[in-house]
């Protein structure tokens, strides 16, 4: 069974993949990481991409964000066609339209938290909107820690700084790859709450890759990947429904038809 995610209207899509294929290597060593994935990610919503390890989650995210090229198909961010952009175009895209949160090593060790947060803006030569900046800082709750360097912050605090950095530029879409993968459950919950709030209260678009059902439950919608294909999706998920779907996907008899 191939399920094409079709939630939302085209005009509202912050990011869109159409029939995206991604093939690594060739011959014997060939790996097909994505097999004709089509998906849309609505503006102002929090979407999780779930799936077992090796199912192509990260690959899909990298392709969507223009970090990796697709073998076939097209990717769009807002009204920009990402596929076919050169380095300069991709750099501009990342500056203006995309924010990132990685699993780890999100921050520059030489800069303070505040400098890290403002880095994308200063690189682009833009000034932060002071009101928005204040809002972001207050939401992440790091005002006292702004002068600290990454080494002086806990893992959860570091990830919150990374979130703030992604948010402060108000990108079209933020991509997060297992942002809580390295955190304990409490810090993880803090970060996830923060991400959900930024969607609910400020209309930010977030696409998050995770393999943790609890984390996925924070999203408005979950897209399931298996073997490089979208196999299912859930709207308004809970940890239980996500877990159920995962179990179903794991049982091969029930999938594929």
């Amino acid at each position, binding site marked *: 069974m191939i399920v094409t995610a079709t939630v939302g209207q085209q005009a509202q899509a912050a990011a869109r993949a159409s029939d995206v294929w991604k093939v690594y290597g060739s011959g014997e060593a060939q790996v097909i990481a994505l097999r004709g994935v089509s998906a849309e990610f609505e503006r102002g919503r929090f979407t999780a991409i779930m799936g077992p390890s090796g199912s192509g989650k990260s690959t899909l995210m*990298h392709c969507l964000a223009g*970090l*990796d090229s697709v073998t076939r198909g097209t990717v769009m961010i807002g009204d920009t066609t990402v596929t076919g952009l050169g*380095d*300069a175009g991709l*750099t*501009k895209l*990342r*500056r*203006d339209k995309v*924010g*990132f949160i*990685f699993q*780890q*090593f*999100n921050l*520059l*060790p*030489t*800069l303070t938290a505040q400098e890290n947060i403002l*880095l*994308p803006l*200063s*690189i*682009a*030569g833009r000034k932060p909107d002071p009101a928005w900046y204040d809002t972001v800082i207050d939401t992440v709750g790091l005002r006292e820690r702004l002068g600290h360097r990454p*080494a002086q912050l806990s893992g959860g605090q570091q990830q919150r700084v990374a979130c703030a*950095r992604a948010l402060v530029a108000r990108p079209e879409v933020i991509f997060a790859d297992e942002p809580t993968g390295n955190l304990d459950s409490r810090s993880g919950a803090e970060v996830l709450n923060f991400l959900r709030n930024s969607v609910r209260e400020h209309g930010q678009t977030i696409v998050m890759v995770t393999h943790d059902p609890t984390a996925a439950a924070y999203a408005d919608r979950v897209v399931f990947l298996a073997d490089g294909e979208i196999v299912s999706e859930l709207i308004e998920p809970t940890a239980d429904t996500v877990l159920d779907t995962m179990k179903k996907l794991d049982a091969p008899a029930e999938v594929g038809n």
Partner: protein
Amino acid sequence: MFRATLKSLLARKLRLLLSGLAVVLGVMFVSGAFVLTDTLGRSFDAVFSDAFSDVDVNVAGKPKVALSEVEGEQVAAPVPASVVDRVKAVPGVADVQGVVNTDGARLIGSNGKVVTSFGPPQLGENWLGESDLVKLREGRAPQADDEIVVNVALAEAAKVKVGDRVGVLTLAPKKEFTLVGVFGYSGGRDSVGGVNEVAFTTPVAQQLMLGKPGVFSNVTAQAAGGTTPEALRDQVARSLGADYEVKTGKQLADDASAGLKEGLSFFNKILLGFAAVALLVGTFLILNTFSIIVAQRTRELALMRAIGASGRQVIGSVVLEAVAVGLIASVLGLAAGIGVGALLAYLFGKLAGGLTLAGLGVPPAAVIGAFAVGTVITVVAALLPALRASRIPPIAAMQDVATPDRPLTKVTVGGSVVTAIGAGLLFLGLGGHAGDNTLATILGGVLFAFIGVALLTPLISRPVVALLGTIFAWSVPGKLGRLNSGRNPRRTAITAAALMVGIALVTGVTVILDSAKGSISALAEDTIKAELVISGAQAGPRPPSFDPAVLEKAAAIPGVRLVDGEYGDMATLNGERTWVAASSDVAALEKIFGAKATAGDISRLNPDQMLLSSDTAKSRNLAVGSTVNVQLSRGEARTYTVSGIYESSQLTNPVVLPPQAATDFAIPQPIQGFVQLAPGTSVAAVQPQVERLLADSPEVSVADRAAFIKQQTSQLDTPLRMIQILLALAIVIAVLGIINTLALSVLERTRELGLLRAIGLRRAQTMRMITVEAVVISIFGALLGVVVGTGLGAAVVRALKDEGITDLVLPWGQMVTFLVLAAIIGVVAAVLPAIRAARINVLGAIAHD
């Protein structure tokens, strides 16, 4: 463990090659020096054994004043013609020649200038006819008093041909001769070892080269069949007595060759000095490379520990890597050294006028030196990082290793101690408290000072780099680059220290030489009261001289008040060697050089009187009225009475003899002339008139005082340039170090660079960031170098205060140049690492583990 080491070595070959390059260069100098001296040494041996091949026994007079190579040309006492007959009478002698053959025959070329030589003598001799060695190539032998023949190389250098009238300067002023022939040597050679030769008829040669008729410089004899040269030598020596030195041709060849080899060993020492500088800088580089490699391999090494490797095995793996790098660098360095040695030997042979080179040889010393130096230096430099590697805990494999900011206390304390030792040694050496070991003490002091400052650098680097960085902090990439250069003080420090060494040495030497120049010109400016000066630039061991008749004629020019010609010679005073001068007009001492009498009368001098400087009088324990036995280069010893003593200064000679004494000087002609004009006389009017008088003395010219002072001090420019060029090598090595550090840093920060690119840093901005880091490091190094160099230079200048270097002149222009140069070096060094950083694949970097 061995395989793991080998694998990691291969994985980082480029990096290691880069740091190994410094060792390669150092080793190249070491082995190059040995190869050069060996090749040239054997070439000299061959040349001289050939040149003296037709001499079995040689008889020469003992020198009146024995001099070493550096003190000047030694003048042998002439041998009376009667010795020829006495030798002829010795049984076993087949043939005897009286030979005139001494240095100092300067041919004037067709352009009116004297043909100069850098080193090889310019011999004036009597023509002894053709032999197995000497062959006329063109023309005929000299027969009349105004006929000469010269060797082919000299005729070509002077651009003269058979039939030309040519001028020759000898002990006598310029004389004109007809060139009636040119000669060469067996094997088609145009000269023997670059020596220029002018051959006169025997009486003319005796008069012009030895100063009197009926004497020879030496007498050569050939043994009859059945008599060995050694046996004949002993026979001749017995019959002539102790007044003469009797040697075999082989001994002569060995002596001559040994003299040149002494000069070569000086050259050898210079090359070894540069090898030392290259290796010192290289040590910093290797230390840095291995430190970074160990830091980068922390996880890998920790994993090894976790799976059971001992700390010793970890050290072993790092040291093994160092040995491999050292060996490879030594092999490459040796090969390069052989190439450089051969090239230098070839150039030297060319410069020396076609020295036929013996085959290229690689002496054992070159091989042993190369491997010892290359391997030992590399291993020693890698030892510290190896120790650090062994202390990595196994747990580091599991942890996310943030490089902890280790406290700098230990390094700083160590650095202070080492710097203090260096300063102490410098104080001892420069203060003249180290006796015979002065040079070693000073060099040791400089070495310790460098290492000490290098150890202190991490501490200094924080504030200085922050300050330097603010200059570049106006853009985001600039700011990131500045922060990067400050993030690992040790690494920045060692990289900068490598650059410091070269720049400090150049700055130090420049400070010393500029101060010397400044002091001399200030003194000359203040004291020399002569409007015009006659002098020439010295090329080779012999100072230029001019016709003494010029002095009288110049004195007759209207408006000239006083003319003084200065003569000089090495003599013995009561058996001790010293430099003595004679003034054509003693009054000049007061009137031109501003000397002040401290005892007796220094305004006049009888033929049997002498004047002393106060220093000489004191050190020799002499006073007005003392009698002194003086032996000059020529003639018999004479007794003079001290009639006056003057205050010593930089411009006064230790001893002044009456003008009559100059005829017995090695060079019996004035070497400098000073012309004082009456007030109101135009210098421009007198100068051309004096110039005309010098038409027959092409070695010298007349200049106004300012030009003369400039000419005198500009003699220091040549050594300065040479040192600067050679030390540029140390700077080049340091640039390699900067490239290396940056390349390694870029590699280390792959993930970070990926992140920056992911959040929107453009390629050009990435490159700018790396460039700023490089520029900050190199300017920091240059700044350190300038400061340390100035300190060292100033210390030496202070120590030389008594030698007359009274003014400290700081070369501000040069210092600014170095800083600008450093900025350029930084930009250049950043090119490759920056391109590499800009090319980093964003996705790959983020996924990088």
